[in-house]
């Protein structure tokens, strides 16, 4: 929209990123977990190194040495699981509240369980790692430690929950910045956390472009910078040569020392950047609706933990049935609708582009008629009205349904009349009910904003219990173990 174009141009001229929000629209818990993961080349289901920790305590780094060796990889991941699982499950042991959710009592932690990562790529990598571990067999010849599938099921669920618009259970620092600032760069370049950070806070008065040009060479994972990848490759080769097939943890630990030091340097740089970004954003005021979305996250978390403790032990389907797919899609769409609405309602800077696009109007209340009546179906009904003067021409067509942002869950208003007046317009809106309190109407002399956004609950999706023939899948799917099942036979 021309608002975004204007902001980008402004960022270019001023040499700094411009804010696109007055408030912070994502929650930050008091002491979130932070995970940094490094992928090895194009290996989709392995990590070259993975680190976990909290801001003040610092991170613990786990390096398999040679991740393509299943035993070494799983040994490192087991150590990671020993740090991750207690920390992630620990929120349940903190103060909890009881919430009535879909007709059942649910014990929900008061604190928002939160994991901070560098970018969406890291979330995807964790999800794939989860997929690999979640279905490992814990019995038989290739029995895995029970902690590994548990870690896998947590990660898989987290990556799936990450798709919910506006969730903050797993927070990508890059997305946090991209949603709160506009700079003179493309969406592709904004995927670099270091570049975005440089645009927001360019060092020594440099222009954001030049600062970003230098900063963008820093990789924050999951893919390492090309030069680092070369060094990893070389060190891993030496490691394998010196290891000569030995898998004894002590020997492996010793031999992997150089590799660990390299990954440690890479992780420290990423770690510092993530916390620099998070600390800066934390200073901003949180938007009003963040608490509502955080509550949804806490409930989702509690349900996940409940599922983990249940007879399924956290197993989930990897492929949705047509019915669950439709429900899931509806859920995501509702969350997205609510997120857009809440962000705009909470934040005038988020509402501004909608005003320009003719989806909202804002102005000073110059008139109010509480006792106004009109004929509806032959009856003389009470329908109060307010009159607004806007500074810009009102672009919303007459007879559009709008909601007052202060009472966005309430009844709708209808635009009755738009009259041009000077540069702006005089707009009369009528509330579509006779049941109202005085505080449901804006006060004369105050400024009010009406928009197409409301926070009323959306439609309820009612689906047939059995999928119609058009949506039946040919064969039911089963979850396969990627390592020892059909698909892992030739793993390196």
């Amino acid at each position, binding site marked *: 929209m021309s608002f975004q174009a204007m902001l980008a141009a402004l960022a270019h001229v001023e040499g700094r990123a411009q804010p696109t929000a007055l408030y912070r629209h994502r929650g930050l818990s008091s002491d979130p977990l932070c995970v940094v993961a490094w992928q090895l080349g*194009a290996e989709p289901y392995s990590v070259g190194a993975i680190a976990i920790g909290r801001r003040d305590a610092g991170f613990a780094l786990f390096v398999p040495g040679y991740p393509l060796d299943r035993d070494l990889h799983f040994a490192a991941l087991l150590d990671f699981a020993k740090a991750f699982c207690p920390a992630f499950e620990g929120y349940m042991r903190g103060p909890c509240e009881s919430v009535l959710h879909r007709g059942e009592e649910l014990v929900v932690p008061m604190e928002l369980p939160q994991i901070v990562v560098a970018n969406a790529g890291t979330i995807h990598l964790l999800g794939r790692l989860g997929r690999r571990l979640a279905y490992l067999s814990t019995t038989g010849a290739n029995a895995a430690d029970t902690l590994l599938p548990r870690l896998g099921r947590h990660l898989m669920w987290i990556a799936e929950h990450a798709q919910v618009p506006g969730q903050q259970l797993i927070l990508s620092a890059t997305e946090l910045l991209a949603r709160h600032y506009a700079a003179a760069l493309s969406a592709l*370049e904004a995927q670099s956390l270091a570049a975005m950070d440089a645009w927001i806070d360019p060092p020594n008065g440099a222009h954001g472009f030049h600062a970003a040009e230098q900063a963008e060479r820093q990789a924050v994972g999951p893919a390492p910078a090309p030069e680092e990848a070369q060094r*990893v490759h070389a060190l891993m080769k030496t490691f394998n040569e010196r290891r000569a097939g030995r898998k004894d943890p002590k020997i492996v630990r010793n031999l992997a020392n150089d590799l660990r030091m390299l990954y440690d340097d890479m992780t420290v740089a990423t770690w510092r950047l993530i916390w620099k970004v998070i600390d800066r954003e934390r200073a901003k005021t949180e938007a009003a609706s963040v608490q509502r979305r955080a509550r949804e996250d806490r409930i989702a978390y509690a349900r996940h933990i409940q599922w983990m403790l249940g007879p399924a032990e956290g197993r989930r389907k990897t492929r949705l049935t047509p019915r669950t797919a439709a429900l899931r899609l509806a859920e995501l769409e509702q969350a997205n609708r609510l997120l857009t609405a809440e962000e705009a309602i909470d934040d005038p800077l988020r509402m501004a582009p909608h005003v320009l696009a003719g989806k909202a109007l804002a102005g000073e209340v110059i008139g109010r008629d509480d006792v106004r009546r009109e004929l509806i179906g032959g009856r003389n009904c009470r329908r109060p009205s307010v009159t607004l003067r806007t500074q*810009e021409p009102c672009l919303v067509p007459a007879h559009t349904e709008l909601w007052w942002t202060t009472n966005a869950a309430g009844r709708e208003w209808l635009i009755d009349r738009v009259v041009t007046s000077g540069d702006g317009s005089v707009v009369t809106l009528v509330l579509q009910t006779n049941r109202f309190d005085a505080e449901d109407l804006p006060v004369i002399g105050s400024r009010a904003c009406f928009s197409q956004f409301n926070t009323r609950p959306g439609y309820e999706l009612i689906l047939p219990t059995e999928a119609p023939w058009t949506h039946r899948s040919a064969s039911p799917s089963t979850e396969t173990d990627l390592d020892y099942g059909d698909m892992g036979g*030739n793993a390196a």
Partner: protein
Amino acid sequence: MTPKKHLTELRGAAPEKRPTVRVLAAAMAHNDCAFARLALASRTDLDKLCEGTYFAVEFGQDPQAFQRGHMFETFVKDKDYAMLIKLLREHAGFSITDVRIRNLHSGAPPNERGLRQRATETRQLLKKIVMRAKDAPNIVDGAVLTCTIAGQTAYFEADGLAAATDGRIHVGEVKSFPFTDGRCDNDKLGATCEQAAWYVLLVRRTLADMGLPPDAVSDDGFIILPMGVGLTPTLLVKNLASRVRRAEELFASTPSGAALPASVQNLRFPAMDADETTRLDTLESMMDDVGTSYRPDCLQDCGMSRLCRARAQEVGSAALCGSAVVRWLPGVRTLDRTVALAAGAPPAPSEIHAAHALARAKGLFDRVLTRGQL
């Protein structure tokens, strides 16, 4: 001077790029850039020319990633393509009974002469397949195809494979990103299909050149991917018809002038051993002469992209911010001008439409920042 000689001169001592269908597909995505087209025609490796300077673009494929790709490809082609034949039988309904494989990589020297030799043989093989000759191969690896760029025959190596049965040709691509739970990375799949589509297009053009029916090449391409963690391959059949059509349109939009325009007669790409400043100066002056077209997606596959981006920044081009922003600024030339218009500068007739919206946007932005409300 013949165009061919001219192109060799144009490249001068600059590094040469091995032409593959992958390179063609990437270059054609930027065929609005005259500079990139010139490099494609003269086979100059733009990715290397900025090496060692401030504007170097580090593509440097991760050695591990390369290793994985290589390992998977070897695995699929191992034991005389046994895995591939099994896949074709099981997933594509091929009834290959008598397997005849032609690997054009073997026996040809890795130079221009080898390319020409392979191109000739590729044409013969295609003819045999379409004419349903008894000794026609069912699997062709390492085909070399030709097309005309800037009036010059260019050779392109296909990374993929071609499989044929009953006179029908299917193209195939082997990639190492995984296919798990019925899903894979859609961006990567898209890029792979794109490459396969170019392959289809080139084969069809070759057939048409020989007076054979181009529709002998099927719209259905085969994408071969590993499943899960291991290397066990699977085969997806993808319809490439719409991508081939798009490739055709892109190709048709390339200027086909018999010789290079006069403006490039005296140009020459810089040599790698020239010092940093000379190299960049030469490149920049060439860019000024020929013209470039920077887009943010250039950053993904062009070695000149950081230089072009810095040049776009100097003039304040809206292209820096991506196509969406460009679309919202019709008639406005630069970002600096955008800010001036937003601040209320009188618009030129071509800028009126954008100017109104910009001024309103700036007004709202300032009001919200100063007053904290709309």
